């Protein structure tokens, strides 16, 4: 279901439309929030922020216009997760300033050049993971990005937890081999 379908559905039946929007963008919002809060929040904190993000999204979604739904949702999710990051950091250390300009770069907090380098490296890494094929690529992403355990990944992929662990181990080995060439100059593998 695309953005326009969702908008139309919301106009016709708000509850159905809202659920459709949620289903379509749940992964997107979860990924944004997870990536911001993973170092400071628990799984419950992340879920709470996802819930808060969607509440604001569904309250404020403008059904009189078309397009840009993803941009809107992404912005809300990002703003919410940055707020949650601030709040969680204050709770844990009491040191984060409201005026901290670096908050825009959460979670890396590094300079622009380093961020760009990291992003490029991350994209390259994902390309290598993609080349591993399914289900290995799914297993690695769920383990290292979504931080799911073997049991959870097993439930999603239809494999046994033991099989997930074995495949993960082998996939990781293959991934290292792929990455070895890319990073042989910069790092000792």
């Amino acid at each position, binding site marked *: 279901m695309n953005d326009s379908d969702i908008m139309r559905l919301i106009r016709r039946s708000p509850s159905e439309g809202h659920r459709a929007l949620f289903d379509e963008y749940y992964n997107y919002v*979860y990924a944004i929030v997870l990536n911001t809060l993973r170092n400071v929040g628990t799984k419950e904190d992340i879920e709470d922020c996802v819930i808060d993000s969607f509440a604001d999204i569904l309250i404020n979604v403008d059904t009189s216009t078309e397009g840009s739904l993803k941009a809107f949702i992404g912005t809300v999710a990002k703003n919410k997760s940055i707020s949650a990051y601030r709040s969680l950091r204050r709770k844990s250390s009491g040191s984060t300033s409201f005026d901290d300009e670096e908050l825009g770069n959460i979670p890396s907090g590094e300079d622009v050049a380093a961020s760009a380098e990291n992003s490029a490296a991350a994209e390259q*890494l994902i390309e290598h993971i993609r080349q591993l094929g399914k289900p290995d690529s799914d297993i690695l992403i769920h383990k290292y990005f979504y931080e799911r355990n073997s049991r959870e990944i097993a439930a999603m992929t239809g494999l046994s937890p033991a099989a997930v662990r074995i495949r993960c181990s082998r996939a990781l080995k293959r991934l290292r081999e792929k990455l070895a060439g890319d990073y042989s100059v910069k790092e000792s593998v």
Partner: protein
Amino acid sequence: MKNEKDIFDMLHSADDNTIENIAEEFPQYDKNEADRIYREVEKRIAMKTGDFHEDAVSGVEHIKNRPVWIRPLALAASFVLIAGTVAGSIALMKNAMPDKNTQSAAVATTQTTMKKEDIDQDYIIALTQNCTDSFDRLYAKYTVDRSDDLSDYDNNHSEYELQLDKQNAFKWSKSTDRTITCYDYQYAGRNLTVIPEEGICNVQNANSPLESDLNIYLNRADTLNSDTKDKWSITGYDTVCGKECAVVEYKENHFNAEKESNFSAEIFIDIKTGIVMKEIADYDSEGSDCHNECIVTEIRYDDEAGDFVTPPEFKKFIEDGNYTIDYLGNDHYERVDKDLSFLDMPQGQQTSTADATSSSAVTAAETATETETVSATEAETVPVTGSETEKVTEAETAPPATQALAEIDQDYILDLVSNNKSSINRLYAKIKVTSENYVEAEKKDIKYIDDKTIQYDKNKDCFCEYNDETNEHYAGDMIIYKGKIVAAYKWNNNYHIISNLAPGAVTDNLDLYIRGEYPSVTLDQLLAQKDKWSMTGRETVNGKDCAVIEYNNNDHGLLEAPVKYILYIDIKTGIVIKCNRTYYDNALRKEIASISTFEITELKLNDDAPALEPSDFKKYIVDNGFKPENEESKDISFLDE
């Protein structure tokens, strides 16, 4: 890359695009988890706004946009959400309840000679299901004390005063809590909320029944019904505020399947009317406790109810208070005409004035004939004395056609667009909508093309829309008729019916297209944000002499992305013929993020427009072999009526 931690760190430093790719390519969607989180989202919405979908807890389709409400009702609504989770929605219960005629007899009996020993569960059910039928006029004062771990308003005390006049179809209420006092008035399809502390009077379409306030605290038809008989019992009798009451105890454990949760309530039901005179309710769920006490302190019915605040009196109250007329909530809620002249109308003689902009007909308004639906606003701006055809003729030959650009000011444009429905009896239009997203600089990605044909018939109160199925984003076809939508989809050859439409669905859909609201700025934004737009020229578009206006907004809600609209408005009809919308990149605030266009490529009005026959849509469904999605959607014979 030394170890797993490097992979971990690298993935976590991914930028937005990479995250987006991961989310899209490697979804971690788990249905059960998503269902659970979505339920939490619904609760959070209820807590934040007091708005919730009754169908979300009941499964009953129910289209409504409840307002971002005043605080006392927000509290009430969040409680109702919890209570609704226990017993399902009012709508569901009403569908499930026994034949109303047989119950009315029970109620009539009660009001005369009912003995306590004869009062059983069936009697209480009949009583509560029909409690709003037991009076024509009601005056009530009641208090609500609430403590809630989930709420920001712990230990809140609220006082309510309610005047409900079913005969003359209006409702007045006053609610006060520790922070705010609100006056609420519902009449002729409009709902007005005056908040003296803020100096405003919010106006919107009335999307809820006149009895909605009553249903929040003083009516438990949703809780005490035949489906819940095993959860409650009559435990005694008591007198509250001079009314003899049956005391009902309701208990339900584990009503939230996700966690340990219990709900209990002691409800005092007036055995003559079924009104809840007192209720003490508790909900606890793994440490989250909610306690609610409602007590009626004064109640009178019909002739004893006393004098009520009439519509003209409420209008005077607004004028005397010098309150700013505004819209409620945000863009999530539909916008309506701010004209309060509908309050001038004498009681009992309401016509569907609200149809001037939204067709929000309710109760008495629904009985008005189509010929009566020219509002005060329309009468002022498009004076007509003859038939609708004459009206169109006059509108099309009136001075606007030769209006010099210098004479067309903002107010003129606003009047023109505000009243553009007034000259339309029948409409046929072909529309093209496109949207181009600029994924990266200079990389244009046409995401969306939508070709559609719309038809409207005022007398039949019918709107129909056919979309081009060859478009990638074909969104189905639909007709709105007799309070229902029939939507058909060629991608799966299915169709379904959506019932219980909010009033005004037909004209709301029409407005989307003839006011350019579908891709564009709403009329209400134009009204409220005059500083953001101006006339920039005059241009002929598809043979129509159009005024060109440009609207710029650098603060577009949460998105905060600058946006620019260019609207081309037919100066004869006030119909928005074309609109270009440009969103700019949110971060840089200068690069174009997307461009959308809306254009009516063909327009036929009134006698020139082909007739809209609802039966044609039925034929369309039959000819294309569409199948009903469910049992309830099988019968589309109403399209022949």
